[in-house]
C-alpha cells in the first residue's frame, strides 16, 4: 500500500515537472493576422534567434508577393526584409536571420497583389536559440 502511494506521488511529481518544463521552453507559434485586403496564417516552427523560417499562408485575398521583416520596438532593432518564396499556391516561406535577440518582436508581413499592398503585423515572443 505504502509503495503504491509513493509510486503515485513520484508519477505526479514527474508530470508536474514535465508540464513546468514544457511551459518554459517555447514551442512552434501559430498566429493569424487579418488585414483589410489579405488574411494570413503565420507559422514559426522555431521562434528563436538565429536563422529561422517564417511560413505565411494567405487565407483570403490574392497575393503575388510576400516579404517579411522584423523590428524589436523595445530596443529599436530592425532586421532586413526577407522575400518569401512561394512553395505552393498561397503558401509562402521566408528564411533568414530575422531575430537578433530574445524578446518581443513585431513581425511585419508585406503582401502585394492586384488588390494593392498591405502590411499586417503580429507580435512574436522570441526565445533563446535551443
Amino acid at each position, binding site marked *: 500500500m505504502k509503495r503504491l502511494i509513493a509510486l503515485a506521488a513520484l508519477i505526479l511529481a514527474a508530470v508536474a515537472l514535465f508540464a513546468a518544463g514544457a511551459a518554459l521552453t517555447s514551442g512552434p507559434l501559430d*498566429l*493569424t*493576422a*487579418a488585414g483589410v485586403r489579405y*488574411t494570413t496564417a503565420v507559422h514559426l516552427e522555431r521562434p528563436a534567434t538565429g536563422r529561422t523560417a517564417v511560413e505565411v499562408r494567405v487565407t*483570403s485575398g490574392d497575393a503575388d508577393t510576400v516579404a517579411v521583416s522584423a*523590428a524589436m*520596438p*523595445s*530596443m*529599436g*532593432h*530592425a532586421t532586413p526584409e526577407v522575400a518569401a518564396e512561394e512553395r505552393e499556391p498561397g503558401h509562402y516561406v521566408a528564411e533568414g536571420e530575422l531575430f537578433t535577440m*530574445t*524578446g*518581443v518582436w513585431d513581425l511585419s508581413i508585406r503582401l502585394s497583389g492586384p488588390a494593392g499592398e498591405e502590411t*499586417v503585423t503580429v*507580435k*512574436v*515572443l522570441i526565445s533563446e536559440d535551443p
Partner: protein
Amino acid sequence: MIRALCLAAVLLLALAAPAAAHNVTAGADLRLAQTIGGAEITLVIKGTPRVPGPLRIGVAAFDGAAFDGAAGLPVRLEVRSLTGGGTTTGVARAAAEPEYAELRVEETGPHELTVRAGGETSVVPFRVLVDRGSPGQFLIYGGLFAAGLLLVGGLLTGAVARRGPAMLLAAGAAAGVTVAAMVVVFEPFVPPGPPDGAAPSADTLLAGGRPYAQGRFGTAPAQPVAGQEFTLTLDLVDGATGRPVDDLVSHHEALAHLIVTSEDGRYFRHVHPLRTAPGRLEVRLRADRPGRYLAHAELEREDSGGQLLAGAFTVGGEPGDADGTAGAAGSPLLRPAVPVAGRPTTIEVAADSPVRPWLGMSGHLIVRSQDGSFLGHVHEMGAPGTRLRFTFSFPRAGRYLAWAQHATTDHIVTRPFAVDVAEAR
C-alpha cells in the same frame, strides 16, 4: 538571502502586471479623447467579461458640434478583429452622459475601432483581454467542495458504526480543508497568469523606454489660409528604426494632446488628433489670422515615458473678423504675487460650475514661454469649491502665456492669462 527572495518575489509580481497599452478588460474601460467632426468627444470602450460577448462603446461629449443638435452628433463605430477579420458596427450618439452602443467581439486579442463622425475618420487600435480564472480559485473551491462531501460521507459512515472508512473519509475532508486553506494563504504571492488575448511579454527586465519618436508637422493644404479650414498632420517615426511609430498609449486619456498657439498667444487650441494610419495623426483646424503658429504634441509610447514634439507652420491670407481668442481672460490669484524662477508658484483660477472631469482631471493649465521654446502641462490639484488650483515652478524668469482649462456640462472653458516671472535673487 531573505532580501534576495523578497526582491525576486517583488520582481515576479511586477513583471506579471500586463502592459497598459490600450487594453480593454472587464472593469477597466479605455477612454480616448478625439477632436472629430467639430466636436470634442471621449470614446469609452467597456471591457467584456467573456468572448464571444458584447463590447459596449459610448461617446461622451464635451464641446462643439455634439451639443448643436438636440439629438447629439451621431458617431458611427466599426470594430474589426485583427486576427479573425470579423467586423461589427453600431452607432452611438455623443452626449454629456454617454449612451452606449452594443457591438460584439468574437475573440480576444488585437482589434481596431474605426470611428466616423462629421466626415472624419479615426482608427483606434486596442486589445480585448479576458481574465482567465485563477488555478488557485479552482483549488480553494475544489478543496472545500471535496471536504464537504467527504465530511458528510464520514458522518454517515460513522453513524452506521464503520470506524475505519469513517476515519478515512474524515481524513480526506481534513486534507481538502488543508489544501483550500494553504491556497488561500499563498495565492496572493503567486503571480497571476496573463489574461487571454494579452500581447506576448518577455520575462527579462528591459532597458527602460523605447527609442524617441521623431515628429514632422505638416498642413494640408501646404499653405493654410486664414478663415479657412485646414488639416494639421503629424507623422511619427521611430528614431532608431525609421519605422512609423504605431505604439502610442492612452496618455491622460488621449493618443496625443496637441496644443496649437499663435506666436502672440491670442490663438489657442488644445485638441486630440485622430489616428488615420500607422504613425499618422491628423486634426482639422481653422485659424482666423495670418502668421506663424506653434504646435506642441504631448504623447507617450508603450513602455515609455511621455514626450513632447514641437513644430511650427504659417497661415497666409487676410485677417478675419474674429480674433480667435479662446475665452474671457482669467484673473488668476498667484502666490507669491510675483512668481520667482525655479520656485513653486500656486495659481488659482475661478471656474464655472459645475466642474466636470475632463481627460481624467478637473482642470488643466497649459503654460508657454513667450518665445514658444518651453511648454508645460499642469494638472489641477483638488481645490475646494469652484476654483482650480495649480502648482508650477516656472523654470526661468520672463513672460509666460498660460491657459487654464476645465469642462462644464456642455462646453470647455479656457481662461487665458499671462504671468511675469522674476529672477531668483
